[in-house]
């Protein structure tokens, strides 16, 4: 009976111990809290709020055109002369390519299994639900189509950018700006560096003149480093964002991603930053469009697809601020992978996603007069600067993508 007196206490003790253990285990399995960075992202919040305050912003969440489809007339614009697979069967994952300005060569990004860890403190404050933890190390491979020759530039590079004279390739090795010389086949540190942060690793990118768009200090906004005349005011971005530089690096579109900033849901918003520091809000709730935006070769227009209920390809004119619909489908097919022809008269794009409908590559004249299905299957068309080739990809059984080079001749010289 004396022992029985302690039984309930014992039972309670066991229960409390088990409860504590359970809570500890549950905590260890759940998401660890993200430490807030030293930046409060005030500049970013200011820009996003200013954009969202604009009442007539194009909103992909509510857009539903009453008008009918916009489908340029089917017409043969180009004739395919040659269509050959160029990527070797070497087990590498060849991804996107950047053409040289003269169209004689291209650099392909080849991600590897190696990676760089991202600091916890770089996460967007209060958005502790999605954490970027690492980014890949990548090979950069140089390819000369005329000779069918491949050459490795580096085993660790990202965001390759050709110099204006096509003699060098700038790229990021982690946070270091590197310069690869085509004549000597050697790479050197170009003297500029971004701090080791998520923003430094993700967003730092070379400009064709050897300058660098990067933060100056950890958690600082992006600025142009090197030279005396920065072409852009500081731009603050977080790892949910996406930036698209204009051809002359004097304007940039930033797709600010949706997040739970400050504990409240903030929708995605896309903004054009001008050289004088002014901003033009472009889109709301259209993060897919922001990721898929492409500048025209002159830097005067921006084309993008929408993945709204009725998909469209739209063209925004920077000078007039007007947007026009180039294509409006009568189906729900995904539109993606836009690429301008070097003369700006055509856009190539992918229609379909191999799920509801097969993928195919189309070209459309930018004056809206005609369109042509160029290939059955294929995606990610990439027009060469000399206007002679279109590089594109096809899904592969052995790896994600094989790349093909398509040579064409114009059947009828007409366009926008």
């Amino acid at each position, binding site marked *: 009976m004396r022992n*029985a*007196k302690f039984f*309930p*206490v014992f*039972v*309670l003790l066991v*229960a*409390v111990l*088990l*409860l504590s253990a*359970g809570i500890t285990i549950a905590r260890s*399995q*759940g998401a660890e809290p993200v430490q807030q960075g030293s930046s409060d992202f005030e500049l970013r919040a200011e820009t996003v709020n200013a954009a969202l305050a604009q009442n007539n912003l194009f909103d992909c*969440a*509510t857009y539903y055109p009453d008008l009918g489809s916009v489908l340029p007339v089917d017409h043969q614009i180009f004739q395919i002369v040659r269509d050959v697979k160029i990527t070797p069967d070497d087990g590498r994952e060849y*991804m*996107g390519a950047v053409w040289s300005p003269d169209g004689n060569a291209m650099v392909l*990004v080849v991600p590897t*299994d190696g*990676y760089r860890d991202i600091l916890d403190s770089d996460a967007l404050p209060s958005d502790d*639900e*999605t*954490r*970027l*933890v*690492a*980014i*890949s190390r*990548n090979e950069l491979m140089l390819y000369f189509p005329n000779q069918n020759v491949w050459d490795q530039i580096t085993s660790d590079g990202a*965001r390759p950018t050709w110099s204006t004279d096509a003699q060098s390739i700038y790229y990021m090795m982690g946070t270091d700006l590197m310069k690869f010389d085509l004549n000597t086949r050697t790479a050197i540190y170009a003297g500029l560096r971004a701090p080791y942060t998520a923003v430094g690793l*993700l967003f730092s990118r070379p400009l064709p003149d050897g300058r660098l768009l990067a933060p100056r200090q950890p958690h600082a906004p992006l600025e142009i480093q090197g030279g005396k005349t920065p072409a852009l005011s500081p731009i603050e971005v977080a*790892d*949910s*964002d*996406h930036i698209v530089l204009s051809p002359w690096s004097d304007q940039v579109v930033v*797709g*600010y*991603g*949706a*997040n739970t900033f400050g504990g409240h849901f903030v*929708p*995605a918003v896309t903004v054009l930053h001008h050289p004088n520091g002014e901003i033009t809000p472009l889109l709301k709730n259209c*993060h*897919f469009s922001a*990721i*898929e935006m492409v500048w025209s070769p002159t830097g005067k227009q921006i084309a993008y697809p929408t*993945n*709204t*209920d009725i998909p469209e390809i739209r063209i925004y004119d920077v000078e007039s601020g007007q947007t026009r619909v180039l294509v409006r489908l009568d189906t*729900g097919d995904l539109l*993606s*992978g836009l690429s301008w022809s070097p003369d700006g008269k055509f856009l190539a794009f992918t229609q379909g*996603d*191999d*799920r*509801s409908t097969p993928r195919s590559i189309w070209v459309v004249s930018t004056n809206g007069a005609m369109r042509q299905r160029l290939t059955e299957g294929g*995606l990610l068309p990439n027009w060469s600067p000399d206007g002679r080739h279109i590089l594109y990809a096809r*899904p592969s059984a052995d790896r*994600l*993508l094989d790349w093909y080079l398509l040579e064409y001749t114009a059947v009828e010289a007409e366009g926008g």
Partner: protein
Amino acid sequence: MNKQIRVLTTLTALGLTLLIQLFLTSSAHALIPGYDHKHRYIKPDYTYAYYTTTKEAYIKNTLPNEWGYGETWHDNALQAGAVMIRSGVYWRVNRSVLNSPWPNNNCYKGGSGDTLYYRTVPTSRGGQEQWLPGSSQTRTDSATNATYGYHAERVSLPSGRPDKLVGLRYNATIQNRTNSTTGTWLQRIRYAVLNMGTPYDPNVECSQEDDQTNTDPTYPNN
């Protein structure tokens, strides 16, 4: 003495209640993976980015791109989508973390050791699914929150399996079917996946050798 017995009885009952509650709580949540989702995504600059997301955040950044968020999408269709994506995420996380020996379905195909992850590639870059960071929407977030915890499970635990989870597949056809019918999210899922003309296989995701069962899953939220 009577008072002492009453106190002892009360304390014992309290302790036992606590223990029972603890037992019930732990078994009730045993099927919901306690781990976050780890995955690799191909960024627009063609590098790989590795993410850890909560399972609900994964749904919120997938649902608007796989289903939609415009006015033509019914709330119940979006809720059906949230439950289907959640079922896939639970399956993937548990299969991979628990490394279930059968069927052969470790869904985290990449990496090794503690760097295992699931490979996700957007359809615009050659993949088959649409997780896009930063793409969540008000309507699809609401649909996700409204169905919090609901997922598909088998009626009974198959031999050799660590749990009853079912990884529901979805493709563009199924998404549209959840919207082309009427009813609750549950009725819409059943319409979309049970009448497809091909055998309904709730065990197929990440599986190399499928269990060709046609059993309709249950949809608990615990």
